[in-house]
């Protein structure tokens, strides 16, 4: 039963229903520490649901999901402490609009990690430097562009020093000219060796950083392959078709 220590996420036979709707069907997925997994697939295929299961935002009904050695959903306290190993970035940024950029980043450091104000600010500023937006520390999210907000959201998620970062379509809500600044930050993060699971249709990004590309449709993982093979000629016909459609855009 014990997961190998170099596996951070281990999903076996995962099934999830929303009421009568079967949204995840026998999903198996392992994520090795330091690896980058890109998840793609058509709308409604269950990508968000899968990634939200990984940090326990969604529960599941069958199968097992081990995060950092903890099976999620058995025990609320253990689930919560496993979640602390994760950072999540949402499509719609979800920054706290009433707090400054800096306070967005220090909130969890103060309340969850128990850091002092000074320590929290130092850590937060270091991450804001990393996403290249330290000069906006005292601004409010509403004063930033979408790309800037998403970079702040990445910095905020990094502050608790997660072992794995989860991204749910981080660039889908952005104007085209802002996508690159966010992807650049994500590529840099990948270069630093961060473990990442990323739902995205940015195939250029996938090609550049992904170790593994997973294709979902109708709640199933239909295809999984090393990035090289996925973009090569091999693969499931459905994922080929999907790739052809999105690469044309």
């Amino acid at each position, binding site marked *: 039963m014990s997961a190998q220590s170099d596996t951070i996420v281990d999903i076996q036979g995962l099934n999830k229903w929303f009421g009568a709707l079967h949204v995840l069907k026998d999903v198996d997925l392992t994520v090795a520490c330091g690896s980058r997994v890109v998840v793609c697939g058509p709308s409604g295929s269950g990508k968000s649901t899968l990634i939200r299961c990984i940090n326990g935002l969604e529960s599941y009904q069958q199968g097992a999901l081990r995060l950092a050695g903890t099976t999620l959903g058995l025990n609320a306290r253990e689930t919560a402490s496993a*979640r602390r190993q994760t950072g999540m970035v949402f499509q719609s940024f*979800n920054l*706290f*609009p009433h707090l400054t950029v800096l306070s967005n980043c220090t*909130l*969890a450091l103060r309340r*969850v990690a128990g850091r002092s104000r000074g320590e929290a600010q130092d850590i937060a500023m270091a991450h804001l430097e990393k996403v290249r937006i330290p000069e906006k520390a005292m601004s409010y*999210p509403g004063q930033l562009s979408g790309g800037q907000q998403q970079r702040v959201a990445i910095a905020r998620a990094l502050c*608790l020093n997660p072992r794995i970062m989860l991204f749910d379509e981080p660039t889908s809500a952005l104007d085209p000219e802002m996508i690159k600044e966010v992807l650049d930050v994500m590529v840099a993060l990948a270069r630093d060796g961060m473990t990442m699971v990323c739902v995205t249709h940015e195939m250029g990004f996938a090609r550049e950083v992904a170790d593994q590309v997973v294709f979902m449709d109708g709640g199933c993982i239909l295809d999984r392959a090393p990035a090289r093979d996925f973009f090569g000629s091999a693969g499931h016909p459905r994922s080929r078709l999907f790739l052809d459609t999105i690469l044309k855009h």
Partner: protein
Amino acid sequence: MGFDLAFALSSVPTILGAVGTTLCVALVSCIGAAAIGFFFEMVRRAGGIAGLTVGFVIDFIRSTPVLAWLYFLYFVLPFYGIRLGSMTVGVMGLSLYYSGYLAEVFKAGIDAIPKGQSEAARALSLSRRDAVIHVIAPQMLRNIAAPLGNYFVSILKATPYLAVLAVPEMLGRAFDIASETYRYTEPLVVAGLIFLALALVISHGVKRLERRLLAVGAR
């Protein structure tokens, strides 16, 4: 029987003497109603049997007259050995009664916050309590400053109900003068004007507060 200005002015000090009581009752009731209302809404939101029960209590409170609550607390509780002063009963009655309405206001204010906010709080491992204090409540306050202010004015205007418990508030005092002198117009007009002035001050304060809340991190 015209309006006797001199008599009206002579009644002002007596009526003003009760302003303290009125404001005090109103203020404590506002705080009480907000605290109980917020607690109610939190329990209702958490769901389960407790949530359903509280939901029913909120609806029940909102469909009963405030006087019924005052009479109930004042005349029925002593039968069960609970003897409270009329001022305490008055504050309790107004707090309880308006908590039902404020729970609804809080609900609307929380419903208006995008779902992503509490999800982000969870993803950051904030405890439920911290999420409420640091993420939900501040945004809720911004959403509801105006209706909250209106209810505070309503509570102020409901203080005369406490006359039935012989709490010496403003309108009761005005009425005392009236029944002693058989002149009703002047004391009642004076009391009305003082209520108007207080309500205007509160509304103005709430508007300023709202503007400041909205200015912070304008979306």
